[in-house]
């Protein structure tokens, strides 16, 4: 499972991190850290009606709910589809039944997951019929089609019996059974050499967009095309739908220009948690200057931002004068500087600790906008994930080299001495290759990091390339032997800590291409602990186990964790904004206009 997981998640991080906003569609609790946040959470009162305008810079990755693996695609899915479960709007660690009737039943050994779905939910025109369990089965199956190419189906549903990534459209998965119209059963095969199955992960993944039902008789002809045309002809089960014509063609989606959502006439309010206040949502793309976009929203009416956060100057203005127009939410992700544990001198744990201790992480954070854009980590699992509190919350485990956000030169010197450098600074003369971004805030972060390492005695050769090349040509390729990657980061897929730590610090996940264990950390005890924890089904046990793994990874100091990002969301005066704590963005189906 880990191979495909790796690949899939790498895609996610690539798509998302170039924007400062982030989250590939997972979950989030607020960790009690967003004291500046306003206006979020409680679905509260809102006025019915009106048009909400959302300004985006770019487009979704895929408009198809079965293909999208990006925060913005998830935002659309949350408004237009009923996934089996949906993270609670103001506490994303709780998954609420949406298309499902009740919580999933996971067998003791984790080898079967049973879900009952609601009756009475109808597809939008032109399908106009009631949703059955077969539609959920087809939705998951099509994720494995080579015409749909879902990025995470293999990672999270690959353990379903008979599931195989990249099959021809129409291929069924025998492991998904539908004993009646309202029951779906996932039969999993045990992990190698085990008698238990990763049912806990499968149950968690049922809140991913892929679980939104798809009518086979309508979608199958579209799925025959390569790539599938279902996205441009999709039907909805949520409160909104992409405006379409009589044949089902989604005329409201113009790639790169506009996504126009209207009410789904077949939506039944009594079967949904979303209040769906506004009548219409107009997503306008191509607003690529963040300053201009921010001013338009702040001074305009009925507008919100989408894939692009306001720049620091605007944040400052809002925080000092216009707090009501801003909401800050943890993204469920973090950024770090990886130290390659296979490259000298970072194969020495004391050198790694010395660097982690001496780094002024406040200076790094200032490149992104300072305190408002996120907290400085004390361990690895970020706020918004299950396991964060178990790992000590904001305080962490009390690891000394991660205690001081401004960096502790004395402690750093002590660790250097332990590594055999009596001067308290690094004394080796070799040049270390650091590969960072060549533009935007990422470029600044890289330069600040390089300068600090120079001050610790290292000779740094900083190569600055595009964000994409940084990943694909350097940091994602162990053969490139990059010593330091200052612009890497990861986002949860859903609030399970496995989606965060397994791809990034599991030694069994080091791949020749598309690698995301950038530190190439390969500690047998940690790998084993992860394999064991993956099979746990009880949420509380999972949280404890992954928190323990967090401690083990943290103590290895494979990276300099320097920020747990927050997303900055802005809105016009007359917008009653509600943030989806899971996705870290405004919720289109909870936000209202006055």
């Amino acid at each position, binding site marked *: 499972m880990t191979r495909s997981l790796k690949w899939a998640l790498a895609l996610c991080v690539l798509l998302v991190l170039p924007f400062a906003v982030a989250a590939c569609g997972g979950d989030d609790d607020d960790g009690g850290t967003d004291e500046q946040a306003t206006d979020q959470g409680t679905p509260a009162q809102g006025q019915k009606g009106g048009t909400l305008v959302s300004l985006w810079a770019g487009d979704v990755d895929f408009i198809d709910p079965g293909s999208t693996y990006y925060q913005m695609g998830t935002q659309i899915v949350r408004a237009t589809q009923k996934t089996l479960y949906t993270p609670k709007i103001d506490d994303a660690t709780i998954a609420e039944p949406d298309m499902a009737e009740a919580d999933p039943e996971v067998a003791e050994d984790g080898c079967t997951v049973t879900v009952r779905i609601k009756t009475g939910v109808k597809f939008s025109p032109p399908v106009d019929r009631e949703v059955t369990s077969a539609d959920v089965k087809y939705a998951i199956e099509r994720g494995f089609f080579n015409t749909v190419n879902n990025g995470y189906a293999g990672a999270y549903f690959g353990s379903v019996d008979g599931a195989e990534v990249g099959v021809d459209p129409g291929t069924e998965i025998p492991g998904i059974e539908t004993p009646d119209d309202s029951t779906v059963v996932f039969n999993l095969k045990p992990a190698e050499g085990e008698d238990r199955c990763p049912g806990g992960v499968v149950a968690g993944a049922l809140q991913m967009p892929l679980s939104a039902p798809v009518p086979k008789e309508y979608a199958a002809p579209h799925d025959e095309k390569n790539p599938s045309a279902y996205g441009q002809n999709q039907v909805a089960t949520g409160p909104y739908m992409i405006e379409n014509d009589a044949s089902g063609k989604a005329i409201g989606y113009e790639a790169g220009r506009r996504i126009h959502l209207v009410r789904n006439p077949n939506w039944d309010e009594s079967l949904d948690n979303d209040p769906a206040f506004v009548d219409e949502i107009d997503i306008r793309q191509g607003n690529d200057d963040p300053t201009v976009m921010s001013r338009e929203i702040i001074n305009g009416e009925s507008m919100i931002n989408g894939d692009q956060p306001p*720049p620091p100057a605007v944040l400052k203005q809002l925080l000092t004068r216009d707090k009501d127009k801003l909401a800050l939410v943890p993204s469920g992700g973090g950024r770090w500087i990886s130290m390659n544990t296979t490259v000298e001198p970072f194969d020495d744990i004391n050198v790694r600790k010395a660097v982690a201790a001496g780094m002024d992480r406040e200076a790094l954070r200032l490149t992104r906008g300072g305190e408002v854009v996120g907290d400085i980590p004390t361990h690895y699992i970020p706020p918004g994930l299950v396991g964060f509190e178990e790992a000590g919350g904001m305080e962490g485990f009390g690891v000394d080299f991660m205690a001081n956000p401004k960096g502790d030169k004395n402690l750093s010197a002590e660790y250097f001495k332990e590594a055999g450098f009596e001067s308290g600074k690094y004394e080796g003369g070799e040049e270390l290759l650091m590969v960072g971004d060549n533009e*935007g805030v990422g470029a600044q972060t890289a330069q600040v990091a390089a300068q600090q390492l120079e001050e610790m005695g290292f000779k740094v050769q900083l190569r600055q390339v595009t964000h994409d090349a940084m990943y694909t040509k350097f940091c994602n390729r162990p053969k490139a032997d990059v010593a330091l990657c200052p612009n890497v980061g990861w986002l949860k897929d859903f609030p399970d800590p496995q989606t965060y730590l397994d791809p990034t610090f599991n030694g069994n996940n080091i791949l020749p291409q598309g690698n995301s264990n950038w530190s190439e950390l390969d500690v047998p005890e940690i790998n084993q602990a992860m394999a064991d924890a993956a099979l746990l089904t009880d949420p509380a046990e999972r949280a404890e186990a992954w928190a323990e793994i967090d401690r083990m990874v943290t103590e290895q100091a494979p990276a300099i964790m320097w920020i747990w990002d927050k997303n900055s969301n802005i809105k016009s005066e007359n917008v009653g904004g509600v943030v989806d704590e899971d996705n870290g963005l405004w919720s289109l189906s909870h936000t209202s206009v006055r």
Partner: protein
Amino acid sequence: MSTGAGASDLLHAEDPGLDQIVSGEQSVTARSPLQLFWRRFRRDKVAMTALFFIALLVAVAILAGPIIKLVGAPGPNVQQTSALDDFGLPSGPSSEHLFGVDPIGRDVFARVLYGARVSLMVALIGTGLSVIFGSVLGIIAGFYRSWVDTIIARSLDVMLAFPVLLLGLGLATACSGENGCAGGLIQPGLSVVIAIIVLANTPYVARIIRGQVLSLREKEFVEASRSLGASNTRIMFRDILPNLVAPIIVYATLFIPANILLEAALSFLGVGVQPPTASWGDMLSDAVSIFDVAWWFMFFPGTALLLTVLAFNLVGDGLQDALNPKGTKSR
């Protein structure tokens, strides 16, 4: 004007001193071409001011370190987070930082001074190499004519048609991989910028020189030299080349500002000098996104660039006038 005007009247406008010479009050002194040139150039107030500015700039670039120490500014790569506010926004000009700081807390004054080094170095080396290659190619093409000329001239035409900025961007993208291009020979940085400048300028220089050589090679002194049995090489480089010094100097001076701009453009696009080395183009590129809150970050490097380019252009024009008194004034 009256028809009976004498020679002294006609020359009057040119130089009052000639009056005395013509009327025999002062003896005629022999002047070398250099002296003649300098006398003419000196009279051009604008060009002299510009030349003074360039001299100052060169001095500042060389003495950047001591000057920064003198005004108490930190070095060009020192990052002071204390000069940033809580949102990481840079602070403006103050007694501590004369030109303010950039978004990672580096002193803009220090970076503008050090940026002058890069600009001047790249422009001088790039122009120098272009002039050398261009002159050699131009002389050979113009002197030998026939098939040699055809090959060289057509190759130059091809080079002239090359989209230089696109080439730079392409090189930067293609060569930013693990080992650069051509076995690591080409990697984004100074060498690429200089190579692009040479590629861009050489054909212009060569064309001009070729044209001059085509007419010079028919002159009597060349025939004389040939009849005395001089070798082709000798004729080209001992007889013809000295006659090309004037146009070479003029064009070189005019290429320098263009190359400073080209370097800035390439750095702006991320192909040029690699950080943390200060470069005006790179600073301008970084300044764009925060111009609304940090005008100084664009204003000072921008002004430096503008003044430098202007100064070189003015000196170039002045030189042209001074070296080519027969030609019409360029201004």
